[in-house]
């Protein structure tokens, strides 16, 4: 609860400070703070604030402080586009970060092209974002095809023969089913059922009963953490005992352990961040500092798997501004191509993606397979 009030106060303070700090470099943050994605959006913003404060404590960028202009897109594509418009034209932010969900990001993208302002995409997974020829998009989260590619070498080691999917009915879930399905078929693994569940659905027993009756050995699940908790509980209630691997990076194993209890035991998760074992992350020191600061601010530990993207996103933007030498959209867009540093989940540097001449930037983060064992997160030995 304190977290919420801190955020509110911070927003009010940020608003009050508008104008007073005209010399600060402003970064627009376009996230869902109300509506269905409110929890995740808020975590990302919290992470972004930690990064901004850290950068400012070290003297800022180009000798100036950075200032986040945070706006709520209400988990709604129309609002996301409107917010982008406001940030670019009325707050005059030369660079944006956003917008969590893929449909939100896709709605913002035409605005980026119109005003030629770059945006760092921190969470969205839809393949379309980096293949539609928008040269102002730079993404640090992996699209599912990239995630599937990273997972490929582990398939044989896990001994998977036939796989069913249970995915969220959105770009995130459907994209994962398509991309992982393709990869598995290439590896000679059979793909069985592809079951769909609605965002916000609470009772998946019908889908699970069907999966229980199938002859597959593994179920791959793509959804956000709240629904995963429900799924594991309902799987336990149905006596469904198959190997479960979740994908998508929104799993948050701590929340799963806390809320699903023993029902989550033995589940495996593909994740892009390892906060439980900082020493195994690419930059252990940064991970530790980030987690320490996160805890110091009184946020729930479970939020770090979401918020590190906000943290890395702002750090990447700061690097780009530094390299651009001036806080101007065109210069920053160009400078993104030369960003190269180690984020909390691997190197952040952008490779070209999409139609030639209008490529978007895509960074390739690390992907880890973890397992929940006796209420703790472990890295399975394969």
């Amino acid at each position, binding site marked *: 609860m304190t977290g919420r009030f801190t955020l509110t106060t911070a927003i009010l303070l940020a608003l009050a400070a508008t104008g007073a700090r005209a010399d600060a470099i402003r970064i627009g943050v376009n996230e869902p703070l109300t509506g*269905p994605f409110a929890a995740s959006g808020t975590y990302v913003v919290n992470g972004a604030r930690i990064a901004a404060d850290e950068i400012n404590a070290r003297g800022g960028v180009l000798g100036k402080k950075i200032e986040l202009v945070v706006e709520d897109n209400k988990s709604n594509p129309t609002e996301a586009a409107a917010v982008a418009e406001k940030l670019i034209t009325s707050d005059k932010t030369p660079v944006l970060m956003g917008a969590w969900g893929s449909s939100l990001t896709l709605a913002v993208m035409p605005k980026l092209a119109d005003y030629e302002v770059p945006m760092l995409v921190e969470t969205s997974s839809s393949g379309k974002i980096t293949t539609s020829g928008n040269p102002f998009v730079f993404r640090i989260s992996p699209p599912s095809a990239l995630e599937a590619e990273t997972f490929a070498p582990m398939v044989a080691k896990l001994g998977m023969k036939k796989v069913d999917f249970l995915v969220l009915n959105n770009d995130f879930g459907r994209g994962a089913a398509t991309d992982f399905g393709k990869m598995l078929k290439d590896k000679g693994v059979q793909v069985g059922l592809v079951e769909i569940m609605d965002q916000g659905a609470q009772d998946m027993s*019908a889908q699970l*009963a069907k999966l229980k*009756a199938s002859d597959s050995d593994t179920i791959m699940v793509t959804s956000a953490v709240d629904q995963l908790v*429900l799924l594991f509980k309902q799987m*336990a209630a149905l006596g469904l005992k198959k190997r479960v691997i979740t994908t998508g990076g929104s799993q948050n194993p701590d929340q799963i352990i806390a809320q699903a209890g023993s029902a989550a035991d033995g589940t495996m998760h593909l994740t892009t961040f390892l906060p439980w074992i900082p020493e195994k992350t690419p930059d252990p020191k940064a991970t530790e500092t980030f987690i320490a600061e996160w805890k110091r601010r009184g946020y729930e530990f479970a939020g770090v798997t979401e918020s590190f993207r906000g943290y890395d996103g702002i750090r990447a933007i700061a690097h780009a501004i530094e390299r651009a030498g001036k806080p101007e959209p065109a210069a920053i867009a160009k400078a993104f191509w030369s960003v190269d540093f180690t984020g909390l989940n691997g190197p952040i540097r952008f490779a070209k993606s999409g139609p030639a001449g209008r490529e978007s930037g895509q960074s390739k983060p690390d992907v880890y397979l973890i397992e929940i064992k006796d209420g703790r997160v472990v890295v399975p030995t394969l």
Partner: protein
Amino acid sequence: MDQLIQHLVNTAILGGTYALLGIGLTLIFGIMNVVNFTHGALYTVGAYLMYLAVAALGLNFFLALPVAILGGLLFGAAIEILLLRPFRGQDIDTTMLVMIGAGIALQSGTLWIFGGVAKAIPSPFPEAPLQIGPVSVSWLRLFVLGAALALIGLAYALINRTKLGLAMRAAFQDADTAALMGVNVRRIYTATFAMGSALAAAAGALLGPVYVVYPQMGGLAELKAFAIVILGGLGNVTGAAIGGFILALAEELGAGYVSSGYRDAMGFLIIIAVLLYKPTGLFAKAERIG
């Protein structure tokens, strides 16, 4: 075959909770002619009260349940007195909009207070399910089904066996005549709304531990509750209970044998079909003529 049996068992479990959601709404709809768009928010409030009682106050699970239901009762009474009473006599659209406004405010209020992160309510039941042959059922969900059926029975008895229930039924038939016969219609309305709200809160408090608790949980629940109410016929408590089970069956079989993507569509398709075949719902009582 095993799959079918499991689907049918699921139907029973799910249907009980749907029925509980439906009857609270049908009471308010039928007696007060109010399309209650706070039903989902009150369901959410019930779940959060349960969470507060169990997780924050450390109350016993079975003790927390009546606390949450009582909370819903008081919440409902307050909404009726503050927001509905001043609008008595306005048309149905106006009160509906007032309820929409209240629903938006309530939902955003819970988001503000509790944040968007889902909360889990611990339950005292064993994690391992009850296993009968190929079918498994969780103990918690069995308890929820039992409690839901008990609450439905209680509501039924209250309406059909008590003086208050008689007055409520009189108000349902014809509020003006009931008033002439000496029924305090204002008090009946408050009691009805409070009771409907308590049932919504009860559904939230019972389902909170089964699922997780978050501010938007009421949205889909509310739509389904409307569907159940229409299926059963306005103001018909028994009809709503049966409607709950029909909806659950349609969803289970739809998802199991047609396509899980269209799971939620099943219920709505049934509603359209039913209303085309019988425009007053499956179990509507004959309406007065004239």
